[in-house]
């Protein structure tokens, strides 16, 4: 079912400013969004953005009123993740703006394009601690790709155009525009046709061909080559090229958490996700490989484990559009700065043929077969891992899985083989609890016809569950699956492993009845205690138009395996087998 986000009626022609080119700042904002073909705005009004909301009234661009600004920005992230287009957020000054900080940081870490507008007090009172004033530019500088405070209404169209350009090109990221109230009310001429020219911003798109030749040469000589594909492959829309490269060279592939979906999860050469909760095959491949080709991943510590043991014998190739990522964590032998799609295409043009690595492929295949992810099935109780499998089965793998952060997130990554891009939305770098539900709203709006599942834990869900009101109001058909273990599972797991089973503040004996809670919002809700119930309820959810919540009671003692303990090398996994 398509979400009920109806564009409201366009304004009467007479309601526009007198001359088509003389507009208020607020009207300019709306016209700029129109020029950028913005499909949806996520936001929350307030005093300082009243002029903007006045201009938005009946402007024709759908606006989603979340119940908290954090919900707006996570929804925009979800939208950006599945569509690749910038998510647009509007919030008021002061508390409205500060409520965006977590989402901005999350988007910065995970390279998501956002254009975020914050209201600001009038220029003449900036700096006087005026009502709802916050120095949001100062607060957000470290967590934005760039930011502006508009000082003159004449600058506004170019500022917005630059913001969209910066957010969506190079390494994507959030851009913030702080708009003082008097500027929003001021009038000026509007011209959106001028080209963007930013001398200090010229991201390298086409890689250096000599570097590509070096990569090709390294791969030709490789006996144990491995491709590590990150989210950069998804941002560059390079999944087809990656598949072609792998098919022609027969190099095994692993993914980072955020790279899932960049390579078919059911492909014979796919080793599964690598890292702290990655597969034995993927982690051993990284440990043992002689050429590691990282395409669009940033060697995050949750991937690498102890750097001393990470790809220690390998020639490391790092293809990244952000030169600052190269050599930051892992010394790189062959750096390639540029777009992943361009780089892979150039590698293909180099005529790489099948690598001489049959023994290596065979060994990794043995690992893959011998040491898959495992859990102990239970006929009476619903295992969280099984729940993920059920979602996969019942949607034929077509579901868009949006998660929160914690154990359930890792299980979703482990037990749902993503066959295509755009089906996996998760908070990786920042690990933001509360991300799931609002991000699912944004993902569903970006993909109106896809079955979107918000897979959340009972902990993170309660951080943003007020957004249930949004899925009801706009009839956004997100299926909310709460893997309810009455604990902060990942915290509990670490306390079990590393803190002598002292479960400090990680067990939650008192939880709301999530079924009744959903009922209060008018959302059909079910409980699932075992596998049979779970399958039935998922089928029911899929048959139900509109949102549904399933409260899945899962054991609280379950752990995520295997695990690379903090400080350990990537090959030192525990819990590889039961």
């Amino acid at each position, binding site marked *: 079912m398509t979400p009920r986000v109806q564009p409201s009626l366009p304004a009467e022609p007479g309601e526009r400013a007198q001359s088509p080119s003389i507009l208020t700042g607020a009207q300019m904002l709306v016209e700029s969004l129109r020029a950028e073909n913005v499909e949806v705005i996520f936001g929350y009004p307030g005093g300082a953005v009243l002029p903007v909301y006045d201009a938005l009234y009946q402007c024709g661009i759908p606006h989603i009123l979340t119940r908290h600004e954090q919900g707006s920005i996570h929804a925009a992230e979800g939208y950006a993740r599945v569509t690749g287009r910038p998510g647009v957020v509007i919030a008021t000054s002061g508390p409205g703006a500060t409520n965006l900080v977590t989402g901005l940081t999350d988007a910065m870490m995970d390279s998501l394009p956002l254009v975020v507008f914050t209201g600001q007090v009038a220029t003449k009172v900036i700096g006087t601690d005026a009502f709802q004033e916050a120095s949001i530019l100062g607060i957000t*500088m470290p967590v934005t790709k760039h930011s502006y405070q508009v*000082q003159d209404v004449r600058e506004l169209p170019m500022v917005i155009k630059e913001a969209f350009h*910066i957010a969506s090109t190079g390494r994507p990221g959030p851009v913030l525009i702080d708009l003082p109230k008097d500027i929003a009310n001021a009038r000026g001429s509007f011209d959106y046709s001028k080209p963007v020219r930013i*001398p*200090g911003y010229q991201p390298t798109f086409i890689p250096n061909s000599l570097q590509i030749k070096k990569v090709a040469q390294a791969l030709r000589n490789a006996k144990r080559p491995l491709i590590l594909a990150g989210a950069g492959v998804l941002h560059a829309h390079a999944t087809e090229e990656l598949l072609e490269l792998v098919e022609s060279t027969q190099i095994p592939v692993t993914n980072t958490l955020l790279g899932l979906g960049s390579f078919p999860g059911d492909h014979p050469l796919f080793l599964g996700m690598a890292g702290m909760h990655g597969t034995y095959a993927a982690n051993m491949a990284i440990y043992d490989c002689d050429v590691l080709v990282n395409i669009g991943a940033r060697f995050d510590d949750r991937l690498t484990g102890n750097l001393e043991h990470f790809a220690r014998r390998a020639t490391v190739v790092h293809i990244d559009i952000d030169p600052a990522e190269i*050599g930051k964590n892992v*010394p790189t032998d062959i750096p390639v700065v540029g777009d992943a799609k361009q780089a892979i295409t150039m590698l293909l043009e180099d005529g790489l043929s099948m690598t001489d690595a049959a023994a290596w492929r065979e060994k990794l295949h043995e690992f893959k077969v011998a040491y898959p992810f495992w859990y102990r099935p239970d006929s009476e109780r619903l295992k969280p891992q099984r729940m993920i499998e059920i979602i996969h089965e019942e949607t034929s793998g077509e579901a868009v899985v949006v998660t929160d952060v914690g154990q359930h997130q890792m299980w979703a990554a482990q037990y749902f083989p993503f066959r295509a891009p755009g089906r996996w939305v998760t908070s990786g770098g920042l690990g933001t609890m509360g991300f799931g539900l609002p991000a699912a709203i944004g993902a569903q709006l970006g993909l109106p016809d896809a079955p979107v599942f918000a897979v959340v834990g009972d902990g993170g869900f309660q951080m943003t569950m007020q957004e249930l009101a949004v899925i009801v109001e706009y009839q956004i058909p997100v299926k909310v699956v709460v893997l309810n273990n009455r604990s902060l599972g990942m915290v509990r797991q670490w306390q079990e492993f590393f803190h002598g089973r002292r479960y400090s503040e990680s067990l939650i004996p008192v939880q709301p009845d999530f079924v009744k809670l959903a009922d209060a919002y008018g959302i059909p809700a079910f409980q699932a205690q075992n596998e049979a119930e779970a399958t039935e309820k998922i089928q029911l959810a899929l048959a139900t138009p509109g949102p549904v919540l399933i409260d899945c009671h899962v054991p609280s003692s379950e752990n995520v395996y295997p695990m690379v303990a903090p400080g350990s090398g990537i090959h030192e996994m525990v819990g590889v087998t039961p």
Partner: protein
Amino acid sequence: MNRVLTVLVNNRMGVLNRITGLFLKRGFNIQSITVGPTETDGVSRMTIVIGADDERIVEQVIKQLHKQIDVLKVMDITEQQIVARELLLIKVNSSVQNRAEVMALIEPFRASIIDVGRESVTVQATGRPDKVDALIALLRPYGVRELARTGVTAFPRDSDTVNEVIRLNKGSMLPI
């Protein structure tokens, strides 16, 4: 070892905050930083001296600076032929009796007295940090009342002469 970076930036609101914030975020240390206008309208030059022995850290600093939208150009001029200067203002105790002595002392440094009080003189000196250090050491016995150093500003030379960075690195470059 001290590294000298010159950074050309858009002279926009908050740009200094962006740069210093970046150093904070990434855990880099600034030894000194100077900012001022250049020959081009709207463009400022920052001269940033960092103390970093690890080549990877230096590389990261430069790359992260490059990523800032308001940064137009970053140059590590440490290994180049550069001119590097800083300004010192120092107020030392000096009675009428020993004033001639102070003047004789500062003369080889081409420093000058720019203000005279009843019990003190204020000396201005410009030069490389090691020279400034030396002058301070000479004046210290008289009793330093106030001292201000600007930090180094620098750019590459056109002509090939002695690499001043070698000397620069002998200077303490530390806040006194």
